[in-house]
């Protein structure tokens, strides 16, 4: 078998993956021995594969444990969790329900509930409900009689009701008057007590104010007398100091005069 360069280049990776028949591998080897370019291609593949194969594994950063509550609880999961017997039973029930439904649809099943009467039919449409025939009674006479009865009953009830209402109002008025009197007495008493208390307070306040005004006046008088005495003492002291200073000034002046007269002598 003679290979072209294109075929050989296509076969090189297959040979490296042991994906060639022995005869094909032989033909490829023969070609590679003769063709330097294809040999170079093979070396490129070998080098790339050897690099890929040296790629090292990384250590896991943590463990990836799972916990029972992470399993979830969807309907499918629930069904899967059933024992085979229950699973069979639920499947049969589901199939049965679907079958009944299909049969009902196929048989054109109809169902109607009207005025407490249930009716159903397969295929044929349900008969339209027929209104009941008129009874053999005199409706007008019955109506008049019923109206009369109702009016009489209504009159009696209204009279009873009015009487009851009147009684209630009378009772209520009586009660109100009694209550009102009591309230008025209580209010008057409260007013009197409040007035008395206010007058007492006013008197006490006036007395207190006079007392405090007198106290303040007395205190001011005392303070004024003390201030006057102090001022007088100070003035006397200043006058004394002034006299002393005058004496000193006179002495100094006389001394100066004596000094000034000395050359004349």
């Amino acid at each position, binding site marked *: 078998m003679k290979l072209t360069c294109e075929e050989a280049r296509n076969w090189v990776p297959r040979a490296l*993956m042991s994906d060639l028949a022995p005869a094909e591998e032989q033909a490829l080897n023969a070609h590679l021995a003769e063709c330097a370019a294809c040999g170079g291609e093979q070396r*490129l593949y070998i*080098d*790339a594969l050897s690099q890929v194969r040296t*790629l090292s594994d*990384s250590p896991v950063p943590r463990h990836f444990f799972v*916990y029972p509550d*992470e*399993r979830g609880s969807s309907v499918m999961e629930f069904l899967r969790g059933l024992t085979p017997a229950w699973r069979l039973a639920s499947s049969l029930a589901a199939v049965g329900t679907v079958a009944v439904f299909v049969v009902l649809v196929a048989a054109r099943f109809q169902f109607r509930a009207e005025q407490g009467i249930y009716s159903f039919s397969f295929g044929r449409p349900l008969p339209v409900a027929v209104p009941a025939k008129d009874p053999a009674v005199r409706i007008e006479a019955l109506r008049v009689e019923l109206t009369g009865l109702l009016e009489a009953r209504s009159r009696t009830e209204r009279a009873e009701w009015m009487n009851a209402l009147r009684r209630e109002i009378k009772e209520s008025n009586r009660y109100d008057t009694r209550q009102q009197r009591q309230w008025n007495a209580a209010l008057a008493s409260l007013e009197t007590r409040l007035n008395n208390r206010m007058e007492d307070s006013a008197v006490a306040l006036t007395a207190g104010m006079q007392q405090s005004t007198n106290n303040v006046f007395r205190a001011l008088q005392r303070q004024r007398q003390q201030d006057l005495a102090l001022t007088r003492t100070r003035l006397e002291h200043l006058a004394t100091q002034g006299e002393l200073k005058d004496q000193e000034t006179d002495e100094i002046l006389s001394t100066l005069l004596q000094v000034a007269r000395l050359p004349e002598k």
Partner: protein
Amino acid sequence: MENILDSALSHTRTLTTQNAESSQEAGWVAASQRGDAVSFNRLVLKWERPIYNLSLRMLRDADEAAEATQEVFLLAFKGIRRFRLDAQFSTWLYRIAANHCTSRLRKRPPGVHLSLDGSQEGTEAGQSLAAAECPEREFFRQESDRKVRSALEYLQPEQRIIVELKFFQEMTFEQIALVVEAPLSTVKSRLYHGLEILKIRLGRGVARDQASTGGR
């Protein structure tokens, strides 16, 4: 002869351990289906690292990846009763993670570009550099990681998830087809398109080397 016996013995031991782990996991899954959250959290402990790294490589944002991982486990917890015990739990879990991350990527507004080259990775890198025995080697490893993550950014979400499952979760094409619920041919086609992009993005160093050798 002794070597053959040793290797056979070790292979048998490995198979026995795998069977024991698988039956233990099946027990946890069955208990989780009966509503036992503790058993489910044992499954979380077992699978959180690959799922977180898948989310991280798909979404390229540490916070978003953590959030997506939590949501993936929550979705799995909610839907574990639907899981059929004859299937592989890992395939089912990866399917949830793949769909969730792809959906998140599609919901991102156009132009949003998240990168781990920022502060988060910087901090992480700084810490691991300080802790590493050989800081230079650690630095180059981180640089290479950064480059690969950037190259993965250029893949479509559908291509990226297949590259992720093929190279980082080491799944077969059939397993990937089960996870992404796509035909085998679609899976292969997306993978080869993704590889071509990765070759273009990551094979430049070799191309430069070749050019420099040719120039001499």
